[in-house]
């Protein structure tokens, strides 16, 4: 009986491995390394969203919250854009043992965009003395909606498939974040200056996707050479 179960389990594993093979990313030591650096800007002059008036829990949340759906820096640079290579199949290993923190502090998700490797643990934290709820809107991953009163400091969460997952708190409607479940390590989020970096990239030509929650997405081809930095500048049009 037991042997049969083991055999069945083994067959199951093989089948699931085969099913996933089209997307499978192979991690190994990278001998020759290149880099990609770049900047993301917004085309034209998209209107900046207004700060949000807070009408509840003002002791914790304050009277107003910054709108984070579009943050522009100097020269129209875009913060919180997500960069990823879409057709890379081999490179440095994905850190599935990682613990990535997503905090809820003063009624804001911090950071506003968080990258977590598929299989790694996203530690969803509540630093506030009030209840929040973590409600994900995912398709490839199982969507969750978990209450997090102050008595529950951490909810560990895992993602099984690559996806950019919209996440919100229903109690405080302005609280939103994007969880980027990454199936390889070549993902980045732009900083205050709209800049990003991808390190340890094996030489080759890649498709690069640039996505922003308000400005949409575009793809660009990038060629990486050994021991060199490829520089990219993209403009997102809404």
């Amino acid at each position, binding site marked *: 009986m037991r042997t049969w179960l083991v055999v069945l389990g083994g067959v*199951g594993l093989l089948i*699931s491995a085969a099913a996933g093979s089209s997307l499978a990313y192979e991690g190994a030591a990278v001998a020759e390394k290149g880099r990609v650096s770049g900047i993301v800007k917004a085309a034209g002059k998209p209107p900046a969203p207004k700060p949000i008036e807070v*009408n*509840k829990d003002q002791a914790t949340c304050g009277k107003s919250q910054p709108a984070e759906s579009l943050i522009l820096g100097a020269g129209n640079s875009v913060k919180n854009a997500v960069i990823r290579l879409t057709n890379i199949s081999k490179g440095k290993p994905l850190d599935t043992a990682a613990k990535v923190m997503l905090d809820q502090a003063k009624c804001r998700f911090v950071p506003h965009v968080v990258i977590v490797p598929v299989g790694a643990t996203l530690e969803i934290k509540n630093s506030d003395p*009030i*209840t929040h*709820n*973590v*409600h994900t*809107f995912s*398709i490839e991953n*199982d*969507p*969750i*909606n*978990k*209450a*997090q*009163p102050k*008595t*529950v400091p951490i*909810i560990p969460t895992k993602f099984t498939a690559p996806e950019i997952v919209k996440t919100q708190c*229903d*109690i*405080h*409607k302005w609280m939103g974040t994007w969880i980027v479940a990454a199936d390889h390590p070549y993902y980045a989020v732009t900083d205050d200056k709209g800049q990003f970096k991808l390190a340890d990239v094996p030489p080759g030509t890649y498709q690069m996707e640039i996505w922003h929650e308000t400005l949409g997405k575009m793809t660009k081809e990038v060629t990486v050479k050994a021991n060199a930095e490829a520089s990219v500048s993209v403009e997102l049009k809404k």
Partner: protein
Amino acid sequence: MRWACLILLMILLTPSTGWGQEKGASPGGAGAPPAAPSPQDLQAGKRIYQKWCMNCHGAQGDGAGPAADFLRPRPRDFRQGLFKIRTTQSGQLPSDQDLFNVITKGMPGTGMPGWEKVLTEAERWQLVSYLKTFSRRFARASAPPEPIRIGTQLPLSADSAAEGKRLFREIECFKCHGDEGRGDGPSAPELTDDWGAPIRPANLRKPWTFRGGHTPEALYLRLQSGIAGSPMPSFADSLDNEKTWHLVNYVMSLWQDSSGNNPPLQVVLKARRVEGEIPAQPGEAFWQDQEPFYYPLVGQVIREPRLFVPSVDGVQVQAVYNDRELALRLVWDDPTNSKADAEQGTFEDAAAIEFPVQVPPGAKRPFFLMGDAELAVQLLRWGSSSGMTELNGNGLDKLQPQSESSQESTAVGEFQNGQYQVVMKRPLRTVNTAQDIQFETGRFIPVAFFAWDGSNGETGGKMALTSWFYFFIEPALPKVTYVYPALAVVIAGGLQWWVVRRLRQTKMD
């Protein structure tokens, strides 16, 4: 056709009690689901779906069938694999049994009826198999979902309910469900479902509207699993078995009737005679002693503009009178205290009682929707901004307030924790006999009720209503009524004493 529409809606929106009759972990009461559906099963399921389900849920299972726009909550979009009523953890798919149970029992408080009497058990399982083809999540799942284990139940007690009340505040249930559970919390007005449609938190004092029934086990499971596709999260991370039961017990302690069923409808609203002043304040203890009558309301769908899903689904009425005036106390739940504001385009909340101006001698009555050309009605209406108004109607578009001098009614209204309480008073007899009903004891007077929730866009013909019921002002009992029973007791006692005495004397002799 219009009548058919109204009746159909009333039937559809009548809460099913099917869930309430079941106990335990398998409310469907059916056997195990078939192991793997055959292509024939799926074909059969598809045929059943197209015949019975498609008009609301859509041919593609996207919840956008032709009838969808008339329903709120809207019919479920099956493509995301998000199902409200589950026995599984947050993030997990429902079990086959969960889907079967909802099909079988329906969802109280929504347009989803139970199919137990329409489809055979085998057909319902075929439907379950077909439903699962609308979402990729079912095919992707490697193992069936694990059911939530319900631990040892803590019986309902005052201590447990008190602990539940403390937890209700600690984990902040009140943020959506309100301080007293009427779904009027500070976050309630902004809530949307996963598809962006506005959604209301449950009024915890109306268990007959709970989508998955109101057994203790059902409440336990909703707290642990959450309600997928809605803002209601799972509290599995914060509530262990004991705490979950405390909260279940607290919620059950809020119910007027421990069975959780909707209050029985009484056809005749009775007004009792009282002596002396009738308290005008709705919060007075006096009103706790008066018999309550309950009337369910439905949306006005007969004339444009129609209201398919009213906010106020019932009103409780109490009536008393003294030698001068009639007093009616109306109590109804409304999650928001709305005021009329022309600039913002918002409306006031309101309720009204309707009588015919002339009490008809026979069965003939005015049309219940604000009267008709031949027979006029009178309305006693209280609004959260406008206060008390007497109106007369000869039809929905022929409704006029009476002149200032003829306004003889008064009212005091209060709003607290998602509930309105209003006491209306009117003299029994008035000067304006042409427009005012003259109240007489001992007659069956037609009466109907209306309610408007301004924040739900309800104004004018957009309202919740009842059709005619009866109002009966109980005649004052003449004083001799109290003398006769006493007299009877004395005579009966006297007779017995005499008989016993005679018997004793006979024995002695």
